């Protein structure tokens, strides 16, 4: 008597689902899904952008003209809140303009529209992408040239920026002290950063300023990163460490600028 194995219809479903997923991945790499991806992204980004605008109280159009249309039924408090938001945005853009005048960088201004969907790291999404000249590993700054991260993924209309506070972020930096000590700025320590691999024989003091050293090859030299708040120099360790405070709050970013590669 032959034994017959019971047919499991769920296996067929799993195989079909796996094959469908493989097909989607192949079509994506062949760029056949580009129109659907673009449409879906627009469909999802538009309400999120509107939601953030309603919180911020308005936005700056590409031409730099604020687009606030006060609702006649808004209370004075709402209008005051919107005015504060607009002033804040104006300050950010004015500082970026000052930075642009002092340097020869080409800047692409972008709004922060969200955070990375995988919720793993400190990664933000900006509303500029490959179509606007954003390149992979481009440095991202705020205000008067404060470095906040680098671009790690570029899509046609959006880009992902890895913030300095992320545990995967590593930036070559220099301390503006007498020895011009070099080190690596790493994230993953909450709101503060750490400058590691500082030679033990060099003097690092609290309130020393840390800037990018340019040794990465893709981040220009001289972008402000943070200020030293604590120095750790243990005798049993080969290098000393410094704890830094970033120049800006990396959790409250609204307008950033990407430095274009010339």
């Amino acid at each position, binding site marked *: 008597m032959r034994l017959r194995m019971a047919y499991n219809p769920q296996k067929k479903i799993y195989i079909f689902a796996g094959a469908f997923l493989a097909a989607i991945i192949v079509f994506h790499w062949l760029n056949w899904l580009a129109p659907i991806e673009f449409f879906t992204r627009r469909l*999802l980004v538009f309400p999120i952008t509107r939601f953030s605008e309603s919180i911020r109280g308005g936005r700056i159009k590409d031409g730099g003209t604020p687009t606030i249309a006060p609702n006649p039924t808004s209370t004075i408090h709402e209008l005051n809140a919107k005015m504060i938001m607009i002033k804040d945005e104006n300050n950010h853009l004015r500082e970026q303009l000052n930075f642009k005048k002092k340097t020869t960088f080409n800047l692409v201004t972008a709004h922060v529209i969200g955070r990375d*969907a995988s919720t793993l790291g400190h990664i933000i999404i900006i509303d500029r992408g490959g179509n606007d000249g954003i390149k992979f590993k481009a440095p991202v700054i705020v205000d008067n040239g404060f470095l906040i991260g680098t671009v790690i993924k570029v899509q046609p209309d959006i880009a992902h920026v890895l913030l300095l506070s992320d*545990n995967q972020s590593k930036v070559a930096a220099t301390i503006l002290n007498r020895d011009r000590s070099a080190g690596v700025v790493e994230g*993953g320590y909450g709101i503060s950063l750490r400058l590691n691999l500082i030679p033990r024989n060099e003097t690092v003091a609290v309130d020393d300023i840390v800037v990018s050293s340019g040794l990465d090859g893709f981040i220009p030299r001289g972008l402000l990163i943070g200020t030293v708040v604590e120095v750790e120099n243990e005798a049993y360790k080969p290098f000393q460490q410094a704890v830094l405070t970033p120049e800006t709050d990396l959790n409250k970013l609204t307008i950033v600028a990407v430095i274009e590669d010339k």
Partner: protein
Amino acid sequence: MKKLLEWVGAFFLVVVITMIHFIVITFTSSPWNSIHLILASLFCLLIITAQKPISALAMALIFGFCVELFASTPFGLVSFALLISVIVVSFLLNTIFTNRSILIVFFSGVVGTASYYIILTIGIMTQAFFYKTNFIVTTEFVERAGISILTTSLFFIISYSFISRFTRRLNPRYISGATFTL
């Protein structure tokens, strides 16, 4: 016509849940921004559709596609991780466990969310290996994943409690596996 309405309803549901997920992770503070609403929604759908995981698998693929558009991970990894986590939870609920008590639901949520993050991590490490980039699993990374697993599972329990009270009073023909056949 009924099928078309089901498809439209499913698409609308996917869009709404995805938007709420993005709004939660962008505008809320920790630990609320660790809740993975999409995972919790898929697990709730698995419990509602009981023995037929096909609806949850189809929704996992659609959710995965929407999330891929805004994820920094390689394309396909999030969808794959969602698919596997749905299969794991379906296996637990249909093969291992026989009841749907709060403890079992919580355990299923923990296992499902943990498998999602494990697969995501393995995928990112594989990409780092082949593309010669750096990826280190640090203490902060494990902490963030742990917080997300806990918050997502708790949200799953709360959603399940709410849904089960509602579905008990609903006509069974609306909540059987036939409802979400795609």
